[in-house]
C-alpha cells in the first residue's frame, strides 16, 4: 500500500544492440532493469515496490526483436519485444499453435496486449497483491510469504512453494511449457539456449534476491523458440477468471495432444496460475496416453491433473482453486474432443 501513483525518477538507457543492452546491465550492476513493453515494470514502479524498482531502465523496445517467424521444419521464433497482440493475431500461430493463439488472446486487456511483449509475459513479476503493495515479502527484501499467512485466495500456489508461494501469473508461458519451448538468453558471454522450464524454475535466488526467474542481473531474453507441432497433434487452452478481461488466471490449462486415430499417443498438459511456475501435470499426461477423449476419461484426467495438490490451509485458504484447476483441464480437453 503506498500513497503515490507516479513513476519515480529513473535514468533512461537506450541500447542499439542486444550486446549493448547486456553491457549496460553489467555496467550498472543490479541498479538497471530491462524494459520491453513496460506494462509490468512501470506499474511496479508506480506502486513503489522497493526491491523491484530500478534506478536505471534499459529500454529495448527499439531493438530489432519484434518478429514472428514460422517455418515448418524450424518451428516458431518469436522475438522478445513482439507485442502479445501480434502473437494473438498471427495466422500461423492460430493454425499451428492454437493453444498459444488462445492463451495470447486471454492476456489482460486489448491495450495491454498491444504494449506488453512476448518476453515480458514470460518474465513478469508475480501479481501477488502483497508484493504489489510493497509488503516486505521474500521478493521484497523480507523473510516471510504473507500470502501463506494472509489472503491467499487468488495469488498463491495450490501446489506448495519454497520461500515464496506466489504463482507465476502469465498465460503465454503456460502454452510455451506445453509446447516445449526454449528461450534464447543473452548474457555477457553470449547467447544461451535453455528450456523455458529452466528460465522459470519457480524460485531462483540470484545475487541474494529471491526471484521467479533465473535470469542474472545482466541477462535478457531475446527470443522464444517453439518446435514444430507434432504431426496429428491438436492443442487448446482454457483460462478460468472472475472477470473475462483484465484478470489473471485463477487456474488455466494448456493442452497439446498427439493422436493415433482417436487414441492419444502423447500428451502435454500444463497448468497455469496455480503454482510458482507453470505446472506440468505429469500424472494426467501419463493417464491420457492410450486413452481417447470421452467425458469419463476427461473427468479422470482432470482428477489426475491435481494430484499432489496441497492447497493452503493457513490464512484464507485456497482449496477452491483445486476445483477450478480441474475445471480448466476439463474445458481444455473438451475443446479437443
Amino acid at each position, binding site marked *: *500500500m*503506498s*500513497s*503515490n*501513483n*507516479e*513513476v*519515480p*525518477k529513473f535514468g533512461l538507457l537506450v541500447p542499439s544492440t542486444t550486446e549493448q543492452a547486456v553491457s549496460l546491465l553489467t555496467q550498472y550492476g543490479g541498479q538497471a532493469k530491462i524494459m520491453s513493453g513496460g506494462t509490468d515494470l512501470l506499474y511496479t514502479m508506480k506502486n*513503489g515496490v522497493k526491491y523491484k524498482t530500478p534506478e536505471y531502465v534499459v529500454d529495448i523496445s527499439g531493438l530489432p526483436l519484434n518478429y514472428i517467424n514460422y517455418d515448418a521444419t524450424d518451428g516458431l521464433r518469436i522475438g522478445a519485444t513482439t507485442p502479445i497482440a501480434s502473437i494473438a493475431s498471427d495466422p500461423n500461430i492460430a493454425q499451428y499453435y492454437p493453444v498459444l493463439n488462445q492463451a495470447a488472446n486471454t492476456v489482460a*486487456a486489448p491495450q495491454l496486449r498491444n504494449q506488453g511483449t512476448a518476453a515480458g509475459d514470460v518474465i513478469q513479476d508475480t*501479481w501477488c*497483491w*502483497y508484493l*504489489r*503493495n*510493497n*509488503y*516486505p515479502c521474500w521478493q521484497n527484501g*523480507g523473510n*516471510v510469504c*504473507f500470502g501463506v*499467512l*494472509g*489472503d491467499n*485466495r487468488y495469488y498463491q500456489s495450490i501446489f506448495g512453494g519454497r520461500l515464496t508461494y506466489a504463482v507465476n501469473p502469465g498465460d503465454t508461458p503456460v502454452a510455451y511449457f506445453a509446447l516445449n519451448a526454449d528461450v534464447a538468453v543473452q548474457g555477457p558471454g553470449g547467447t544461451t539456449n535453455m528450456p523455458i522450464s529452466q528460465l522459470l524454475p519457480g524460485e531462483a535466488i540470484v545475487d541474494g534476491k529471491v526471484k521467479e526467474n533465473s535470469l542474472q542481473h545482466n541477462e535478457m531474453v531475446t527470443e522464444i523458440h517453439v518446435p514444430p507441432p507434432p504431426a496429428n497433434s491438436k492443442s487448446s487452452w*482454457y483460462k*478460468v*477468471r*472472475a*472477470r*473475462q*478481461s*483484465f*484478470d489473471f488466471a*485463477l487456474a488455466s490449462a494448456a493442452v497439446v495432444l498427439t493422436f493415433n486415430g482417436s487414441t492419444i499417443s502423447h500428451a502435454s498438459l500444463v497448468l497455469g496460475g496455480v503454482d510458482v511456475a507453470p505446472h506440468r501435470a505429469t500424472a494426467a499426461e501419463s493417464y491420457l496416453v492410450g486413452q481417447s477423449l470421452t467425458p469419463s476419461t476427461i473427468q479422470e484426467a482432470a482428477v489426475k491433473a491435481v494430484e499432489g495438490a496441497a492447497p493452503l490451509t493457513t*490464512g*484464507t485458504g485456497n482449496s*477452491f482453486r483445486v*476445483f*477450478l484447476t*480441474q*475445471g*480448466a483441464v*476439463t*474445458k481444455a480437453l473438451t475443446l479437443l474432443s
Partner: protein
Amino acid sequence: MSSSSSSQSSGENNLSTNAKFALVGNPAVTRRDLYAKITGQRKYTQDIVPSDIGASSMWYAGFLVAPHPHAIVTSIDTSEAQNAGYVTLVESDLPVGSLFSGGRAYPPLVSGEVLYAGQPVAAVAAPSANEVVDALSKIKVEYELLPYVFDAQEALQADAPQLWPGGNVPGGGISENRQAISAEVNVSLGDVATALQNSDVVYEDTFVTTVQQHFEILPRGAIAYWSGGQLTVHATTQWAWLVQIILANYFAIPLSDVIVTTSLGGYEDGGALGNGLGNKTSGEEYVLAAVLAKKVGAPVKFIHTRMTHALTTTNRWPITAKIKLGAMSDGTLTAIDAVYYCNVGGRGGAQGSDAVSDLYNTYVCPNVSISSIPVNTNKFALGAFMRSVGEEQGHFIMESAMDELAQKLNMDPTAFRLKNMRTSANAVDPVAKKPYTTIAQPQSLQAVMSASNWTSKWKGWGIPTSVNGTKRTGIGVSIQNAAKGAPIPPSTSQVQVDPDGTVTVYIGLTDHGAGGNTTFPLIAAEALGLTSMDNVKLIQSDTRYTTNSSVTAGSQSTHNSHSLLYAVEDLKSQWFPTVAQSLGASADNLVFGNDTIYDKTNPSNSISFKNAAALLKSSVKGFGVWQIPEDVAYRSTGARIAEVEVDVVTGEVHVVSHSFALGLGRTIFYKGAMHQMMGGSVMGVGSAFYEEIIPDPSQDVTPKPGYPTSGSFLNPNYHDYEIPTIMENPDTADAIPVQNIDPTGPFGATGIGENTIIGADVTYTNALSNALGGYRFKKTPVRIEDVVAAIQAMNGNAGAAPSTTSSSTTS
C-alpha cells in the same frame, strides 16, 4: 425494443400523457454536454491548468497515508522534504478544525492516532506533478502499532480496542435525508414475540454484507488559491455550498470570502465531475489544498491518486444482520424481527436507519421489531454516502431472507411478494405515518414478470430454468422500496430571459453523470413552452453566480429542480404585463406554448417567444423557491427479475437477462433515465459478484518499519477491486419506467439515481441460487470461491432436496 445488447422496452403505460410535452420524456432529446466532453472541450477538475485560473504556474500536492489500521504516530520527519524545497504539512501545521463528511469530527490529517489504514498523515506540495512522488519519499513517519478490530460485534465487546473516547458506538448523526438519528435505531410495531409464536413458518438466519466503494472513474480533487484574503476552490464536489461552509468555518473567514465551484465560469461547464456516486461531497483534499496554497503562495492542485482516493473515501458500510421472519401457511407475512450491526469504519457516524425503514416499508407486516447499531472499527475510513446508503445492503438481506421464507412456504417467490408487498392501497410509511408521494407497486413486479416471461420460466425452488451441458441457468426476483428521492432543502434556482430571446438557467446543482445538464434546461424550456433547448443556457454549481440548490445526490436533483417551475412563474409576473399590453390581452390569461406566448381564451392571439422577448428593455430574471413538503414519504419502488448462468465446472457466472421496472414518476430526460437504469443493473453485477474492499488478514508477522502491515488494504486499485467490464454486461436488459406521477416533482417526476442499483445484486444471487439447487448465499459479494462452495454443496447433495445450512425452524 429489446436487442442483443440492451434496450428499453414495454411497460410505458403512461407515456401517452407525454403527448402534451415537447421535450419532457421525449426519446429524441440527447445529452447536451456529451459531445463537448468527448471532444476534449469540457474541463474536469483534473484538467485545470494554470491559465484556466489566470495563473502562470501552480504547485501540485499529494499525501502520505498510514499503512496500518490502528497506530500512534510517534514521529514525523519532514525536514528532508523541506530541505529539498518542498512544502509539507502535518496535523500540527493546520488550523484547528475538523471535516464534515457524514462521520465523526476529525482533522484532515492524523492527529496522534491512526484509526484506519490509509488515513492521511502528511501532505506535500511540489512545483511539478512529477516531484510529488519525490517529496513524499523524503518524509519519514514512525508508528507504534496498536491492536485493531475489524468486526462490528467484536468492537462492541468491553475488551475491544477503543477508537474513540466514550466507546465505539458513535453518537447521534444524520441520515441520508438529513434527519437527526440517534446512534441506535429501534423500531417496534405490534407484538413480534406473540406473532412469531403463532406463525406457521419461521425462518431465521444471519447475513453479512461487505465493504464496497464508489471507484468513480475520475478521482476527487481540488485546485485552491488565495487572492488577498479570498479563497477560491475548484472542487470535484456534489455540493459546492457544503464545501464553502466547511472552508469558511475551517479558516474562520466569512462565507463571502470563500468561492467554491465546479465551473470555470463558462456555460454548462460545472457538470464535469467524472462521476461521484455520493463520494464527492466533502473530503480532506479541499482543506489541504487550501492550506497548502496559503503556505506556498501559489495555486495548489491536489488530485487524488487512485490509491489515496480509495483509501480515504467513504464506503458502502457492511451490515451483519440477524433476521427472523414469520408467516402463516397461506403466505401471509406476520412478523419481522431483526438486528443490524452496522460497521461504519474508523470515523463513520450513525448509520442504518434507511436499511431499517426499507424492511418495514417494502412489506406490509403488522408486527415488526428492528434495531440497528452503528459501530466504529478499524476496517476502513468511514461508512457514509455511497450510492444507496444502507439500502443496497438492506435489500440484499431482506430479499434473500424473503426468498428463503417463500421457499419454506413452497410459494412462487413472485406470488409471495405480490401477496405481501406494499401497494397503492396502503401507501403510507407505517412508522412515520406519512403517505407516499407515489408508488409503483404492484405494476413494477407485474411488468418485469411479463417482460421476463416469468410464469413459463419458473420451474420451482432449486430447479434451473435450463441446463445446457455444464451450464445451468436460474431465475430470481426482488422488489424494492427504498427511502430515496427525499429532497434536501433548499430548492432554489433562477431563470433569465434576455431581449434577444436567450434563456439562462441558474442552478446550484452539478452533474456527475445523471444527466442534470440536460434535465435542468429541459425543465425550464418545457415550462417556457419552448420546443427546443437551443437557446437555453446553463450556469451552475458556483457559489458566486448561482444559489444553493442542495446536494446533487440522493436521487433528488431532478426532484429538487422543481424550483425552476417557480422561477418561471416569477419570470411571468415580470414579463407578461408587457406582453399582455402588446397583445391587448389580460396577463392572467397568457400562457407559454409552442414557442409562443398566447391568450388561452383566444389562442390565435399570440406572439412568438423571441418577439415577446424583444419587448423587454432589459433582461428579466425569475427567482424560484420550492417549499419541499415534509408531510409525505419519498420512496422509490420497483422490481427486478434476472437470469444468471453458471458453469458448474469452472464456477464462472454470467448475467443472461435483466428486467428492471422502476417508478420514475414522469420521465424527464428519457435517454438518460433509461441508461441510468441499465447502468445500475451493471453496477449490481459488480456488487453481486466482484466488488469488495479486502484488508490484509495476515497476523503474527513481525512488522518491518516503513512497510505495510496486517490490516492494510490489498486492493485499492481497479486491478483487484473488480469493476464489471463490458464482458460482464448482461446479455439483454429491459429498462421499464413505471410512470406513476409524483405530484411533488417537476411535471410529476421523482428521483432515479441510486435507486437503479438497489436490489440488483440480490436479484442476481437469488437467480444463481435457483441455478444451483437452492443454495442460499448469505454474504456479498458472491465471489468465485463462494460459487464453487455452492456447486460442491449441490454436487454433494445430488438428488436430495435443496437445503441450506441455516438454523431455520418450523413451528
